[in-house]
């Protein structure tokens, strides 16, 4: 993967922050507006993949490597498990909503639902980037 022309690179570099920010917004407001952890994670991963296809694999890999994505995915899964264990430690049930509920419609409300969505968002982002890396690296072995 050698990368593309200057026009494509410039447009990709200009569009990357907006796409990334939109994905973060979708993840964080999953309990108030349509969206949630999975679509937001897919949008963030799409922005990184857009850079990857425009600049080629070598320059993007310095930012997000194979090992970092694996660690990030494990962190997301671990966050979900730890948040579930909070309810178990207080003696109620696994994944029970034990945090204060707050007021309906505010950003800091609904107990642990936004935190769980944040964990899912991190996990989905890292997982989809990892799938693309695996498929594109299999590519590179053939070109040699």
């Amino acid at each position, binding site marked *: 993967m050698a990368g593309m022309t200057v026009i494509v690179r410039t447009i990709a570099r200009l569009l990357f922050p907006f796409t990334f920010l939109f994905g973060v917004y979708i993840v964080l407001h*999953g*309990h*108030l*507006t*349509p969206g*949630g952890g999975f679509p937001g994670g897919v949008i963030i991963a799409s922005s990184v993949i857009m850079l990857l296809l425009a600049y080629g694999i070598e320059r993007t890999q310095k930012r997000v490597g194979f090992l970092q994505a694996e660690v990030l*995915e494990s962190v997301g*899964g671990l966050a*979900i498990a730890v948040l*579930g264990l909070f309810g178990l430690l207080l003696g109620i049930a*696994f*994944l029970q*909503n034990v945090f204060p*509920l*707050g*007021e*309906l*419609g505010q950003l800091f*409300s*609904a*107990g*642990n*639902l936004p935190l*769980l*969505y944040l964990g*899912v968002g991190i*996990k*989905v982002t890292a*997982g989809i980037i*990892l*799938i693309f890396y*695996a*498929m594109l*690296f*299999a590519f590179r*072995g*053939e070109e040699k």
Partner: protein
Amino acid sequence: MQRVLALGMVLAIGALLVFTVSTNLLPFGSFPMRKIGENFENSIGQHILENAPQQTGAANVVTSVVWGYRGYDTLGEVTVLFAAVVGVVTIFRTFRRRE
């Protein structure tokens, strides 16, 4: 011969499915078939709609179903995603070593 048999089977299954959903003559199990746009009472969805904003505090009711009422289901979904990622990475790793 095999292809003709398969085509006949597809046509039969398609006709059966379309006939079922358009005439309500052959209900799936004992589930009462809803016409499209029909009002529903006494269903689990109506119960969740009435109670979810007070019980979970989330404005989006779909969110409170996904992580509140059916949390174990979504935990299984996350596990499936993890298994798929591990499967893809494993396949291409052995692939690279053999080259």
